[in-house]
């Protein structure tokens, strides 16, 4: 190698390395930014008041900083969306990997990709103008903004993710196991229930965890459809507020920088980040372990 080539090689490697560091810096940036506003927040409000308080009125007097109403709102959206995304996602995956012809697969797969690609603001609009009116016909006491319609669209939104991760899992079940089941005279229902699903149980779990973490972080759909009324309730037909919707609400107002209202955004953001990060790490590590063992 000539000297010139060596120098270029060194420079190229350095430049690429710096680019790869951008992602690391992003993570460090997120932690620093969230931390730098959250720590001062906890100097003014005690952590126990924040985590276990049931009144969230940081923008009104008398101010109260109990985050549980936002957590219950987010939890309702998560559970409601799980109620749709998990059963439909897993049966879609079963259908795709076990029953469907190649032609059907060529229809269903793109449909799922399109559903996954539709912006969340569109789902929010759909919830507000289509699903809520239907809910109102069925349950007349439904409020204009309600947790249920937000949960339904978030469920539709994360469904493709559950379906595609479960499909991958089912596809990787060894053929010998499946054929063994069929050779013993099992019906496909029995093979699926007693061979395929148990064999891919941990990956199905990972799919559920990752999808629910997406549901928790969803913003625009729940902001539009579920309202901005932070109350500690478990009634799906009432208006609620999620953690993400609260951050949007504050951003839309004219909150001065440095005030306690401004800092609440970051405290709520930190909580959101910690919850989703934990779920993602657990989900990814299950998938990662699987990938390594399959090599």
């Amino acid at each position, binding site marked *: 190698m000539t000297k010139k*080539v060596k120098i*270029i*090689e060194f420079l*190229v*490697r350095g430049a690429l*390395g710096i*680019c*790869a560091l951008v*992602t*690391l810096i*992003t*993570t460090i940036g*997120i932690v620093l*930014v*969230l931390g*730098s*506003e959250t720590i001062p927040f906890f100097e003014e409000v005690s952590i126990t008041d924040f985590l276990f308080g049931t009144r969230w009125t940081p923008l009104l007097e008398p101010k109260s900083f109990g985050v549980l109403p936002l957590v219950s709102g987010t939890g309702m959206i998560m559970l409601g969306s799980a109620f749709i995304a998990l059963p*439909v996602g897993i*049966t*879609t995956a079963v259908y*795709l990997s076990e*029953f469907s012809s190649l032609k059907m697969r060529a*229809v*269903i797969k793109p*449909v799922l*990709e399109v*559903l996954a*690609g*539709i*912006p*969340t*603001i*569109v789902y*929010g*609009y*759909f919830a*507000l*103008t289509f699903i809520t009116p239907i809910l109102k016909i069925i349950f007349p006491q439904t409020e204009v903004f309600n947790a249920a319609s937000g949960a339904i669209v978030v469920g*539709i939104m994360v469904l*493709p993710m559950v379906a595609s991760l479960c499909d991958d899992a089912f596809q990787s079940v060894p053929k010998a196991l499946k054929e063994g089941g069929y050779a013993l005279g099992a*019906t*496909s*229902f*029995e093979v699926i229930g007693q061979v395929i699903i148990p064999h891919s149980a941990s990956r199905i779990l990972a799919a559920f965890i*990752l999808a629910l973490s997406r549901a928790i972080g969803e*913003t*625009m759909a729940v*902001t*539009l459809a579920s309202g901005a009324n932070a109350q500690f309730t478990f009634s799906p037909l009432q208006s609620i507020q999620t953690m*993400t919707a609260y*951050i*949007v609400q504050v*951003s*839309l107002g004219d909150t001065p920088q440095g005030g306690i209202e401004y800092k609440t955004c970051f405290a709520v*953001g930190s909580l*959101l*980040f910690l919850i989703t990060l934990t779920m993602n790490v657990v*989900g*990814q590590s299950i998938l*990662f372990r699987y990938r390594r063992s399959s090599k």
Partner: protein
Amino acid sequence: MIDKFKSRKRTEKIFRAACFGLTFFSVLILVVLLFHITMTGHKYLSWEFLTNWPSRFPHKAGIKAGIWGTIWLISITACISIPIGVLSALFLEEYKIRGKLGKVIEINVANLAGVPSIVYGLLGLTIFVRYCGFDRSLLSGAMTLSLLIMPVIIVSSREAIKAVPDAIRFGAYALGASKYQVVFGHVLPIALPGILTGVILALSRAIGETAPLIIIGALTYISYTPESVMDEFTVLPLQIYNWASRPNEEFHYLAAGGIIVLLAVMMSMNFIAVMIRQRASKKVKL
């Protein structure tokens, strides 16, 4: 014995029907969603709608500012995120670094992809808007969106690079090429269609992003087209949100009109991406 057999058969039939039915739930939802939006939005779709500024009066309102803002924002985002994302992917795939750093970056990218977009908004607000002093400009918005879609670009580019057969690398090395010549002269050109597909899909996701832009404060009344990267801006999804969040029904129809335009842009991008993928899969065969 025969009874048992019959009941097993019946369960099997019911199960198959249930799987089929629930699978078609997704297709049904997509059809209903598109139908509902077309029905509510079509009457506002006109040339004036595309060329008017936003307005207090629904029949005079248009999305010109949103369209131009989106074009500007996505172009800048592409200029920032594509080079950094693709070069990172090349580094991770081709310059496999020994030791922990490579693994840390890999796990980090996977986790960044799962961070809620609103958290990126808080990051952009603090770093770009306030600390760097870019204010609510296109530059702040584009940098925030770039960080948001970077993990997507890296993951899909790595897949494309991984799919390049080793024979090509070894062949180039055997002719005396050095590492960077192999990477940029052979691996990158072959992986390019795959990379392009991933990049287009990532950008089409960025077009629909709303939450981080609201957080950095981009939801303002704009009645001019941006002329530099430091100008304030609005984008299509923000305009849609603004209209959809008003109680007046007429504005909901406007929002649906905006959604039709947004979806049309996104779907044509996805179509192009699929076209590139199909053409490339026919071309390279070893």
